[in-house]
Structures are given as C-alpha cells and as structure tokens.
C-alpha cells in the first residue's frame, strides 16, 4: 500500500523525536491505517482507494507530526536546569571572579567532559547540546587567538589549524543535525558571544586584556546568564517555531549586551557581522539538514539499485 507507507514516511520526516518514540508512533499510525483501510475495503472501495482515503482521513502528516512533536518536545524543569547549567557555571565564573582560579577552571572542564560523555552515551537528550557547545567553543577560541600571533605566523598557523578545527566541528555538528537541526542551533549559540567578547579584549597585550577582563566581568556574566535563560526556555517551550524564535531573540539581546559592554570596541559593523553569524548559526543547520537528508536519500537509492 504505497499511500500508507508514503504517509508514515512523511510523518517520520516531520517528527524529529527520539528513535524509540518515533518508531512507536509510526507503527501505531500504520496499524490505524491498516484497520481503516480494511473497513473501507469492506464498504466497497478498492485496495488503493481505501489506502488513499484512510491516509487522508488521518489528516495532513505535517499536522499530525507537529501535534505529536509538541507532546514530547517539552523537557522537565530538571532538564531545563541541566541545559542552563553550563552557561550558569560560566556566568558564575565571571561574576565571582573565579576565572583566575585554576581549580574552578579545571572543575568546569571536568564537568563539561563528564556531562558530554554521559549525555552522548545515553541517547543524546536535549540538555546535552549546551554542554556539547562548550566542547566546540575552545576550538573556535583558539582559532581567534591565532590572529594575535606575530608576523606571518598567523597565516601559517591558520592554514594548519582551520582543517584540524573543521575536522572536530563538522562531524559533531553533522551528527547533531541528524538528530534534529534545532539542537545544533542550541549547541552553536555561545560561539558569537565568545567571539564578541574575545574581540572586545586587546589580547595582544597581556596586561591590558587582563585588566579589561576584570572590567567586563560583570557584563560577561550577564551575557552568559541570559544564555542560560535562553537554554532553559528552549527546553520548556513546546512549539518548534517558538524554540527558534527564542534562540534568535535572546541571542541578539545578548549581542546587544556584548556591544554595550565593550563600549562599542567592536563597532556597529562588527556587531552586525556578529548578528549575521548568529543568524547563520541558528538557521544554517536547517539548510544543512535538507542537504544531509537529500544526500542520504540519494545514497539509499544507489544502495537499493545495487542490491537489486
């Protein structure tokens, strides 16, 4: 029954839930279509007509999938807190001036590593992705630090570093997008903020940037506190469009804090570039997901062809 399988395939495409829930939902809808088709065949319809009618009576797959997504997309308060925790730790690091304390820094690195390993091995729940973002942030931060190398060393280092960095960032982002692109957006959220603050500091002069960091500490803490609020709200909201909206709005609000905090050191042009980067990081994963799905389907078709 092609109508039945195309219907459940469409639902599956829109669902974006955990694999076990997804297969349960699809299996259940399949049984419903079976029963309904059977009833319609008994009432005199042909098998094909019955299959098409049964699918249309269930309603548009996109709507069914959206309603189902909204049942499961809301995380608990505990999950929201856990998603906000890495950002809260960074906020505490700066508000309490613990960024000078090696034990605190080491503690945060250990916490991030433990949370990422645990979450990755336990079905990649939604709270994992803000933690995962902090595994990628140092890779980007080191890239920015290369700007401050003397002379031509910047270029040599960049040539060597960029492929290495991409080797780390691309597979993780791709895997996250395969789960759901919206999690990749959540994961990449701190990157423009970290870049913004790094550009605000005069990193080539050790004395100055250390002083500047002390001066900016409360604003840096505030920006990460808002980031924590963003992650928690994201987990608690059911609707997908609202999740994307909250990421965009609060990210831009944070960038306003960054711009005001560093006394326009990055300038309006720099700020606009950061906003553009944020838009790219929040919405770009959606486009990448389409590409990944298209290439997956192409590979599947090739595989089926060769299997025949």
């Amino acid at each position, binding site marked *: 029954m092609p109508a039945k399988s195309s219907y459940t395939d469409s639902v599956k495409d829109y669902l974006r839930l955990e694999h076990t829930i997804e297969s*349960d*939902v699809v*299996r*259940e*809808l399949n*049984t*419903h279509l*079976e*029963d*309904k088709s059977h009833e319609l065949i008994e009432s005199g319809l042909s098998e094909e007509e019955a299959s098409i009618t049964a699918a249309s*009576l*269930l*309603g*548009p797959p996109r*709507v*069914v999938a959206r*309603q*189902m997504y*909204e*049942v*499961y997309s809301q995380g608990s308060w505990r999950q929201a807190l856990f998603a906000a925790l890495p950002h809260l730790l960074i906020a505490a690091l700066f508000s309490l001036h613990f960024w000078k304390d090696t034990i605190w820094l080491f503690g945060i690195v250990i916490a991030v590593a433990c949370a990422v390993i645990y979450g990755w091995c336990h079905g990649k729940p939604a709270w994992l992705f803000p933690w995962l973002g902090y595994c990628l942030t140092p890779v980007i931060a080191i890239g920015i630090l290369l700007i401050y190398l003397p002379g031509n060393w910047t270029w040599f280092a960049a040539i060597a570093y960029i492929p290495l960095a991409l080797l780390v960032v691309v597979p993780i982002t791709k895997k996250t997008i395969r789960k759901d692109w919206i999690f990749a957006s959540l994961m990449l959220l701190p990157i423009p903020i970290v870049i913004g603050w790094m550009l605000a500091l005069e990193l080539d002069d050790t004395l100055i940037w250390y002083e500047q960091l002390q001066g900016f500490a409360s604003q840096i803490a505030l920006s990460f506190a808002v980031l924590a609020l963003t992650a928690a709200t994201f987990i608690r909201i059911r609707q997908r469009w609202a999740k994307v909206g909250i990421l965009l709005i609060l990210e831009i609000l944070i960038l306003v804090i960054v711009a005001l905090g560093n006394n326009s050191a990055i300038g309006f042009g720099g700020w606009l570039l950061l906003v553009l980067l944020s838009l790219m990081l929040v919405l770009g994963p959606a486009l990448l997901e389409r590409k990944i799905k298209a290439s997956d389907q192409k590979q599947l078709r090739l595989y089926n062809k060769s299997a025949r």
Partner: protein
Amino acid sequence: MHYKRELLKGSTDSLLLCLINNQPMYGYNIIKEIEKRSNGYFQFKEGTLYPALHRLEKAGLLQGRWQRLPSGQERRYYYITVKGQKAMVERLATWQDFSTAVALIIQPATG
C-alpha cells in the same frame, strides 16, 4: 460547529479516560467506540486522537502497551493508571457540577 468543536476539544481527555477506564483499548477501537456510544455525535478527527493519547500517556494518566490480537496483528492498547483514575474522578465531578449549574441556568425561572 465551531462551538461544538471547542466543546469536544475541552472534553477529549475526560472522554478518553472514561472510555479506557471501562476497558483497555487501542486507537482505532476508541474512535469507533466513541462514535457508537454517542450515536455519531462525537466524531474524532482521526489524526488528533493519537497526540491526545500520547499526551495523556506522557502525563502518566495512561499507559500504552503493544499486544497481539487473536488474528496475529499487534495493536497498541491503552490502560488507565491509578493517577489516571484519580484524574478521571476529579474531572467527572467537575463536569457534573458544571452541567448541573448550566442546567439550572437554562431551565425557565420558576416563582
């Protein structure tokens, strides 16, 4: 029609809990039973039933289990939980109070 839809939307959870409290059922079964028992008055949009069932399951009021029918096919049966039974009793009491109050207002005033 819109008013009827809104009324049904507000009572879906209570109707489902009541029905499943009588005996465990699966989706298609539920649609048919509701239609039969209400003499065709309640006609569920089929696609909205499953999200409602899953929402009640996530809230811990129902529990879904795959079971094999005598024909060999498998269906996802929904069972009411203790929490679900408590919620159903509360909702029914509220509904009865509400319908009594509505009836009191609708009936012509006496004296």
